[in-house]
């Protein structure tokens, strides 16, 4: 990180690509540390929704064709009206209807673990949802209409220019740090990650018996919080070769001389001991960031 970046304060200094956490303080004063939905996830959610829309349209078409055939083509007019209206409502209100639901997410967004919120944390109103989705006309259908239009000579150039111009709206989210669509900007909304998580078991509970393996003070002082979290991830994933490699490194680092036990068992015991040590120190006011944190 450059010195200039540091002088600009934390906002610009933290512009690393993985910095997706946004402060979001509830009225109770707790920061929920929301993470913004990233461009890839947003695009994937949109593709899922479009697929659902297209499939729904095809199903409606097949059903109305079937009804028509069954009634010997008597209700052509009625069927056409119904089809037109359903197609219109699907295209225009599919996104709105789902985002006005308490979960504020279309099926695509739900699958990707995303939801829409009001920037600033207020209520997400029906008006905002309408505004953000009406703007899809500009972001999606305008580039699409340039894409399917044909022409030659000067017209081709006009279409190309139109495509580039409308592409600006389509790729708008890539040009700002909160990944706001034009619709988000106009409606005052943003899309954040809100996955449903299961409460995982506490790894420290799985320590077989207390005191079988004991570590010295120096041994549990070898690492900090960052390493603890990596170790937690390794243990949760329980991948044998990784467990072995990590266990070897820790044994070497702390100079382990104790009795030989299974890698997983050793790591679980060390995890519990390390976490106990670090948590105790945290209670006394010092959170040891990583192994280089000497204080």
């Amino acid at each position, binding site marked *: 990180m450059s010195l200039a970046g540091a002088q600009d304060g934390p906002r610009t200094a933290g512009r690393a690509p993985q910095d997706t956490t946004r402060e979001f303080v509830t009225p109770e004063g707790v920061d929920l540390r929301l993470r913004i939905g990233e461009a890839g996830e947003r695009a994937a959610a949109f593709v899922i929704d479009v697929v659902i829309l297209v499939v729904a349209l095809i199903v409606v078409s097949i059903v109305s064709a079937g009804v028509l055939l069954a009634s010997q083509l008597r209700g052509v007019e009625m069927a*056409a009206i119904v089809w037109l209206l359903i197609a219109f409502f699907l295209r225009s209100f599919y996104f709105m209807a789902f985002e006005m639901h308490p979960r504020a997410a279309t099926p695509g967004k739900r699958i990707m673990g995303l939801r829409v919120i009001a920037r600033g944390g207020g209520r997400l109103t029906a008006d905002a949802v309408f505004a953000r989705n009406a703007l899809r006309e500009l972001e999606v259908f305008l580039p699409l209409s340039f894409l399917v239009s044909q022409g030659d000579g000067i017209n081709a150039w006009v279409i190309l220019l139109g495509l580039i111009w409308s592409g600006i709206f389509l790729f708008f989210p890539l040009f700002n740090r909160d990944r706001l669509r034009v619709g988000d900007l106009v409606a005052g909304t943003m899309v954040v990650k809100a996955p449903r998580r299961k*409460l995982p078991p506490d790894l420290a509970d799985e320590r077989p018996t207390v005191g079988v393996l004991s570590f010295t003070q120096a041994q549990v002082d070898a690492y900090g919080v960052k390493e603890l979290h990596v170790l937690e991830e390794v243990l949760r994933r329980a991948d044998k070769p990784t467990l072995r490699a990590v266990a070897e490194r820790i044994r070497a680092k702390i100079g382990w001389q104790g009795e030989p036990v299974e890698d997983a068992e050793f790591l679980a015991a060390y995890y519990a001991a390390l976490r106990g040590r670090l*948590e105790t120190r945290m209670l006394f006011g010092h959170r040891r960031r990583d192994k280089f944190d000497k204080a």
Partner: protein
Amino acid sequence: MAELVLKSQRFRAEREADWRRLEALLAKAEGGSAARLSREELLELPVLYRSALSSLSVARSISLDQGLIDYLESLCTRAYFFVYGARSTLLARMGGFFTHDWPAAVKGLWRETLVSLAITLLGVVVAAALVAGDPDWFYAFVPSELAGGRDPSASAAFLRATLYDDHDGKSVFATFLFTHNAQVALFAFALGFALCLPTAGLMIHNGLMLGAFLALFASHGLGLEAGGWLMIHGATELFAIVLAGAAGFSIGWAVVFPGETSRMSAAAAAGRRAAVVMIGVVVMLFLAGLLEGIGRQAVRADALRWTIAAASLSLWLAYFYLPRKTP
């Protein structure tokens, strides 16, 4: 089971039941609506939410179990949005919408509405003048699929017939026009974000088409009749499209000239107000579609058509602009 040696383990053991309870309630509420929860559960939820929040802040300061903290963050986020988030469904929104919000929003956009109307009228006048001078201009303004044979080469008798006869598939065509107009209106609104100009273009295009049609019929001495044919639903439909243009202008204007606030918040405020207008515009277009599909076929007399047009226009004007008591 090993005894709980760590403070963070004891902390979790004491509170876990509450978290699970909250999770279960949220799953139930999110599955359908808040109506699924019983009274007791509804009262319980905010309490559980606050205790989960306090668990989260305690966990952050005493626990290093990342899995636990991630879980609590996601649980609190879900609960936060349930407790503070919107549960205003479209249906619930309707209540205050027609009595107050919509007319107020439309009234608030009166300047943009005038601009939008002026641009449309400009298109009408220009196209009418050009077509009256040289009928070939008609083809430049009206695409042939919309004209449906009603072009300068058609006879007066044919043109007259299009005004009064009904063909099969009229109601399909009316539905098509409703969906098409609603799409155009949404498009005009969305284009406003691109600094107003494309919306102005769309408005003028709409005006040009209108002017060309009227001039064509007027050249056969059918001006008044064509006006009645058009305005019976056009009073509503054109008004709606002018309002959609106005909504678009208000967004573009807020982006270019945000005034005292930041550009972002100005755009958001304008966007939400314009959205209120637009929801109503879709409703207006639907009504216009009904008038076109049913009213125009039922009513053939020019005088009556004009009366309906004038009545609907004055109703809309009174509804939007007459002063009303603030609730």
